[in-house]
């Protein structure tokens, strides 16, 4: 409750959930990100669009610290996190999903989510087994139901279908009171039914949770996002609301194809 109040205050003072200041990322001679300046307000839902190789996933990696930026600063809720390790950023409320599911194949579904819930709290090094009435176990169960995986709680991750693995990927990002989430193509490879379930999950997230979503499926991206950032060749190419972006002639030329009406 306190957390929500604090966030409401942050939103009202206009503080940003995420601020990128002149962020660049080089891989040898390749410039994957060039001078990115980006701000996302607390609670804002933003879609990042762009063709393959535009630098969208590299942008996520720079934010989480998977591949720290070569130059520039990253601020999370006003705090400079550029020099912090990945897990320290996560403990400050940042979460992410991966384009290709990164799960714990040898563990059960519920253990995957339990660990994600525990990751953002105390007792990570506990040598005791979690009790059935443990708060984190409860949180994991609730989360599994929310992503429609309740029936699979004891299954091994390696036994899940692709769609179910994508849902679990999202559950891991939602665990442990997230404040800001980076979704990397969550709809990739999903069936139409699973897609609408995904949209429903994203739309029903508490309003204080902001996110950035990378999505090639425009239908998904534009239905869940209130603002759009277009990337091209490692740079921000255009920003605006979904209608503006959709109707922008340059965007249509570059991304949606010249013939798009």
């Amino acid at each position, binding site marked *: 409750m306190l957390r929500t109040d604090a966030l409401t205050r942050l939103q009202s003072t206009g503080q940003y959930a995420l601020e990128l200041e002149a962020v660049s990322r080089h891989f040898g001679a390749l410039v994957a990100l060039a001078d990115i300046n980006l701000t996302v307000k607390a609670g804002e839902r933003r879609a990042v669009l762009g063709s393959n190789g535009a630098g969208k996933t590299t942008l996520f990696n720079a934010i*989480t610290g*998977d591949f720290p930026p070569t130059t520039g600063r990253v601020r999370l809720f006003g705090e400079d996190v550029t020099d912090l*390790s*990945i*897990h320290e950023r*996560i*403990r400050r409320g940042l*979460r*992410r999903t*991966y384009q290709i599911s*990164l*799960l*714990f*194949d*040898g*563990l059960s579904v519920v*253990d*995957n989510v*339990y*660990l*994600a819930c*525990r*990751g*953002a709290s105390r*007792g*990570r*090094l*506990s*040598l*005791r*087994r*979690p009790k059935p009435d443990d708060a984190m176990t409860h949180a994991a169960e609730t989360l599994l139901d929310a992503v429609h995986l309740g029936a699979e709680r004891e299954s091994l991750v390696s036994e899940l279908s692709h769609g179910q693995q994508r849902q679990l990927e999202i559950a*891991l990002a939602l*665990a*442990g009171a997230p404040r800001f989430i980076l979704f990397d193509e969550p709809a990739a490879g999903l069936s139409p039914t699973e897609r609408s379930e995904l949209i429903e999950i994203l739309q029903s997230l508490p309003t204080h949770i902001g996110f950035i979503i990378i999505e090639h499926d425009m239908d998904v991206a534009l239905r869940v996002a209130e603002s759009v950032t277009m990337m091209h060749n490692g740079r921000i190419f255009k920003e605006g609301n979904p209608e503006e972006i959709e109707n922008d002639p340059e965007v249509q030329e570059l991304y949606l194809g010249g013939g798009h009406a």
Partner: protein
Amino acid sequence: MADLSLIAGKSRLPNIHPAALVAAVFLLFYPAFASNFFIFQVGAYTLVLGTIALSLMMLAGYGGMVSLSQLTVAGLAGYLMAILGENSVGVMGLGWPWWLTALTAILAASVFSALIGAISVRTEGIYTIMITLAIAVAFFYFVRQNYVIFNGFTGYAGVEPPVLFGIYWRDPTPFYYLSLAVAAFFFFAVLYGARSTFGLSLQAIRDNPRRMRAIGYDVTLHRIFAYWLAGLIAGTAGVLMVWFNGRISPGSVGVDIVIDILVIAVVGGMRHPIGPFIGALAFVLLENFAIDLIDRERFNTVIGLAFLLVVLFSPDGLLGLWMRIKNALKLKRRTLPESGGGQ
């Protein structure tokens, strides 16, 4: 068999397998019918080697970290028993009481293990093996060349367990039960710990360290903590090892035995803490009886061939072989009655 499973199923501990009950009863009453040779050289030695290999199984099976310095950790504990306690060589031997010596030796070994972890956890796979092997080799040469503390090539002799409650603990039966108690304690601790929060997180780190960081875990810290715990196991087994041999020298921590520990863990199977003990039993039996099958000079060939066969036909060791046979039998039993159709 069916009756036994029924009893096990009705008890308060429904997960106890009838085979485990039989094994427990056998281990408890083993000295009642076995000769001193079988109690000490086979029984106790299997338990000591199995416990050292258990520390490797915990790191490798649950944590994905194949460390070749677990025997080195055990060896340091063994050396400290001789250095801080009593020995018959006339070098060092500070004469500390046995319990203080043992406690210090185990704790020092665990810290040493954590340090090895701190050095090696930033590497993965073959590089972890190389670094930990290098540490093991360095330790071997260090103790061989250092005469002031480790008494060089000769090492130490006359390192004995205490006489406690009127029992001389190096006698076969008391030493067997001491080894059994230590082995059982760590076996159940690892079995329990595998489902603890830390145990689950260790297995998750094995599966996907990158994702573990992305849900808030300090992967490096967790890995070092695992090395520290494994050091407690290996260190305790090291105390038993020096009591078992009565002596310790560079040969006790040589590369050949370092590899033996790896062979024991791999042959037994790394998926369950019972694996290292099965591997140790196979190893000890072969080591003792291969000579009966072939010339003394060639008995290592028999051991090598036996292990090659196991690894070739069952990459997850004897334990994996047993699981496959069990699953095949279960499948057969299930398909037979249903072959007429239905379900």
